[in-house]
């Protein structure tokens, strides 16, 4: 409770607080809730339908782009693998591994 509230007003508010009958209110609330539930269900169905239509609409182009991207990646990784397994690639990767071991201190005597 607030530090500045008037005691007389507080008592007046407390005295005039009405106990309200709830039956009618809860009955009409039930009707309104049922309507809200129906609207929510319809909205969800509409959203799902819209999502399905959009997916069907865009799916061919998405699949096409994904296939093109996978193809490009495959070509790139093929040439990369050939480079790594060449003698020069082996030498460079060994040097990198040595560099990592030196930096992490794994080669130091304990």
């Amino acid at each position, binding site marked *: 409770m*607030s530090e500045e*509230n008037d005691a*007389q007003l507080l008592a007046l*508010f407390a005295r005039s*607080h009405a*106990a309200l009958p709830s039956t009618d209110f*809860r009955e*009409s609330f039930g009707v309104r809730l049922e309507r*809200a539930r129906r609207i*929510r269900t319809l909205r969800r169905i509409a959203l799902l339908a819209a999502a399905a239509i959009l997916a069907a609409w865009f799916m061919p182009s998405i699949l096409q782009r994904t296939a093109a991207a996978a193809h490009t990646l495959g070509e790139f990784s093929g040439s990369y693998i050939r480079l790594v397994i060449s003698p020069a690639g082996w030498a460079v990767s060994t040097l990198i591994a040595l560099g990592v071991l030196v930096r992490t201190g794994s080669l130091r005597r304990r």
Partner: protein
Amino acid sequence: MRQGLAANALAAASEVAVVLLAMNGDDAAYGELVRRRQGSIRNLLRRLTRDAALADDLAQQTFVQGWLSIRGLKAPGAFAGWLRKLAVNFWLQNVRSSRPEVAIEEDLRTEFTASGAAQRLDLDAALARLPGDVRLCIVLAYSEGLSHGEISQTAAIPLGTVKSHIARGSARLRELLQGYGDMHV
């Protein structure tokens, strides 16, 4: 409504437990929350609107909105305050969409002077003479028992403004009620 727990078990359960059930989609639990909270929400809105039918309509909108968005409630213990805030928001929306508050005040002033000082002015009528945001602060402080900080959060009004509204509103309310002999508790 789908039955989660038996009605008497729900009635005996703590509010936090019932709120948790309602947050998990138990409609019977939400019905129990409506049963428990309808009185306070309707009383709050009756104080703010001074119109029983409108207050009940806003209270029902509040409970429907509560049912729709209860899953978004952060803490079950905050349910009462969250619901009160929803009710206040619905009232504010209604005030903004209806005719200007000043016009209502003018109407009441005319009624006041026309009927003379002999007419008894009850608490709700006196509240209706306060500007909307002052009335809101007064009702939340005296009827709902909220602190100034809580009022500031519920009504989205700066703390300093809340304090001045309550000081100003209390003085005006005392003045109005004393003028009509309704202040003797």
